[in-house]
């Protein structure tokens, strides 16, 4: 990589992008091979060495201490002192100076957990620059940002390059990479398979290089056929309110509706009440106010068992936490929740044969690898674990399916498969409520979209009205609630 350029590294999940960067940053040790900086071989035993040589990294998951202030986070590890005591005044001044130099607007005394995600990312960048980073590595920086924040970040990156810094951007969003990078390196299965100038290539070429066989371009963004006229209302809530884990209101009066045979997307920045909504609908969180009808019954007082019997399926955000038991076999996981009914049980006994047969059918239908019902779930990759969850929930033929972040951490192939299965369920008459932080995913799948901001619906869009810019504005709450 050259001084003063913006290099993008692209590749599928698991292609080794993040691992490579962690080696560059000294978090992992290389098993073999040589790292050279300015023509000299270097060896980083810890991030401290990397920082000393002018390398800074902004991690995908922020490395900020939420309870400390911006200034404290930035100076941590190289604190200014006076007589052995921490000199916070000077820390604040230093941070203000760094912010001013690079044109960031940050309040050095603000506690990090009060900042928006976009601002926290700036704190991370300031943290690296404050340490004199010449080379800045950004790992999937836009995954959690709104379109506006992403544009802002692109400007910041170009600004840094203009000042002589080198920026390495790791991403799998091809459009964005093409817009901002000078040069693009494509990684596949731990190897760098190509290096191209951004000006000389297209998204299709890059996608082909990433996937490898040159044929199979990702199908995730293809437009779904808009479903026929939606059917009967499955879910109808008015003025829904609920409290979050921190004891503060998370939902502040939500009205929404889901009908049979449609996918309804919920777009929003993380932490604006989407998660709590999914929990209320599946009986995991009590509502504090409002009314609602869910599959012919009241929403208040709903228990998870009632939700199941009424026909609610749930693909939760954190599968290991809420959907599967890692230590059990695939067939046992497939039976969970339905273990008292055929074909999983015969009277009071487990129906081993029925369970095995059904699981075998499902592993084939959902392309779970290996297709072995007896293998422990923990032996499967994340994508295959998720396919097991999807298979189980859809096999129960839910009338309403609540889906949260269904493709987080999956590779392109698995994403396409999960999306196809969700569309298939919709076409068979299931109502799907899709919560995702990935705006592209929401727009690709949904027939209608509600935008959430601070526990309220700030926008409602039909498929033909989708507009990324407008959605982004609503996600940031910068316009008045529209025609919701």
């Amino acid at each position, binding site marked *: 990589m050259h001084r003063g350029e913006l290099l993008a590294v692209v590749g599928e999940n698991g292609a080794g992008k993040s691992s490579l960067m962690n080696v560059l940053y000294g978090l992992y040790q290389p098993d073999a091979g040589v790292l050279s900086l300015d023509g000299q071989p270097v060896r980083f035993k810890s991030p401290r060495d990397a920082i000393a040589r002018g390398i800074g990294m902004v991690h995908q998951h922020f490395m900020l201490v939420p309870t*400390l202030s911006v200034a404290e986070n930035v100076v941590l590890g190289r604190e200014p002192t006076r007589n052995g*005591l921490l000199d916070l005044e000077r820390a604040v001044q230093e941070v203000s100076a760094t912010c001013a130099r690079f044109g960031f607007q940050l309040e050095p005394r603000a506690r990090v957990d009060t900042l928006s995600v976009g601002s926290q990312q700036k704190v991370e960048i300031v943290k690296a620059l404050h340490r004199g980073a010449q080379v800045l590595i950004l790992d999937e920086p836009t995954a959690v940002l709104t379109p506006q924040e992403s544009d802002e970040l692109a400007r910041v990156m170009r600004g840094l390059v203009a000042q002589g810094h080198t920026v390495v951007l790791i991403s799998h969003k091809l459009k964005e990479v093409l817009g901002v990078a000078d040069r693009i390196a494509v990684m596949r299965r731990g190897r760098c398979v190509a290096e191209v100038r951004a000006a000389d290539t297209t998204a299709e070429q890059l996608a082909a290089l990433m996937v490898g066989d040159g044929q199979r371009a990702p199908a995730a963004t293809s437009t779904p056929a808009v479903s026929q006229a939606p059917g009967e209302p499955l879910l109808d809530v008015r003025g829904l309110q609920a409290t979050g884990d921190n004891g503060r209101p998370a939902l502040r009066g939500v009205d929404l509706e889901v009908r049979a045979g449609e996918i309804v997307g919920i777009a929003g920045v993380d932490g604006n009440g989407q998660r709590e909504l999914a929990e209320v609908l599946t009986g995991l969180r009590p509502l504090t106010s409002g009314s609602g009808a869910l599959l012919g019954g009241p929403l208040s007082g709903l228990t998870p068992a009632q939700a199941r019997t009424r026909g609610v399926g749930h693909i939760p955000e954190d599968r290991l936490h809420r959907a599967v038991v890692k230590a059990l076999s695939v067939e046992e996981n497939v039976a969970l929740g339905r273990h008292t009914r055929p074909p999983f049980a015969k009277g009071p006994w487990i129906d081993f044969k029925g369970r095995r047969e059904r699981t075998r059918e499902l592993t084939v239908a959902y392309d779970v690898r290996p297709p072995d019902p007896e293998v422990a779930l923990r032996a499967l990759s994340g994508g295959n674990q998720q396919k097991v969850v999807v298979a189980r929930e859809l096999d129960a033929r839910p009338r309403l399916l609540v889906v949260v972040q269904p493709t987080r951490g999956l590779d392109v192939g698995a994403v396409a498969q999960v999306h196809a299965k969700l569309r298939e369920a919709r076409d068979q008459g299931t109502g799907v409520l899709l919560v995702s932080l990935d705006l592209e995913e929401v727009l690709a799948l949904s027939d209608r979209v509600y935008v959430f901001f601070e526990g309220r619906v700030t926008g409602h869009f039909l498929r033909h009205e989708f507009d990324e810019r407008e959605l982004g504005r609503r996600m940031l709450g910068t316009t008045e609630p529209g025609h919701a």
Partner: protein
Amino acid sequence: MLDVLHSLLFSTLDAAPALIFAALGAVLSERAGVIAVGMEGMMRVGAFCAAVAALTMPTPLAVVMGMLAGAALAGVHGFLSIRWRSDQVVSGIALNLVALAGGTFLLESLYGPNGTPPIQQLTRWNIPGLSSVPVLGALSGHSAPTYLALLLPFAFQGLLTRTPLGLRLRAVGDKPQAVATLGLSVPGLRWGAVLGSGLLAGLGGAVLSTAVLDRFEQHTPAGLGFMALAAMVFGRWTPVGAFLAATFFAFGNALRIGLVSSAPGLVELIPQGVLLALPYLLTLVVLTLQGQRSSAPAALGTPYEQESR
């Protein structure tokens, strides 16, 4: 009335230091993200070793031995929870059980069930001129740990909030990954905090057998290590808060002793057991009232693994 207040204050100041030191140790360990369930065990080991050491050496030196013994047991905790990333609660409970059983075994086989032979207590210091002042005079006539226990919490608070080391300790308890990516050593900081908490718990135990009592008894420290945890929670994981809470608990205990001796009629009205349980009941009430307004370090109890992203 002044006399009663004087004697209440005096016995509070006499009994509080052991609890204060242990509570500070717990704060130190937990602010760095390592659960401190093992305080009771570390106190017990400290108390035993100090009492035995004092049989053959000057008492102040024996107190140091007690501190080192506490740190040694903390070292085991460190190995289990930092080096091997085991469950910190299980590790701490194991320490408590080892200290409980080991202490009893050594005591009975070496000295019999009635405790170690009496030792020379730590010298009490009389502050000239102060002893005759009403109420405030209660500050005079204690041994060195009492005075240390009145100063240390503020020094510790300063360390935590005003020094680079303190900032790093707070950071490592809330978000160890952030500390690691800045090139600082998470294990190093946690080891320091755990060993420090062992020294403090050992000191608390040693104070019990060399200043409050003059020997190691079968039941020492009789739950004080757990009360230290309560003081830590009540004090919201801050040194000065834990100090105030520990002093409050010690006051509750002094109140009980005072009640029994000054109003013998009371004992006939209220069963002895209830009075004995008074400090513990106070602890329960206080913790219930405080409810869920928790301010525990975010990464408390989570072993740090470099690979987990």
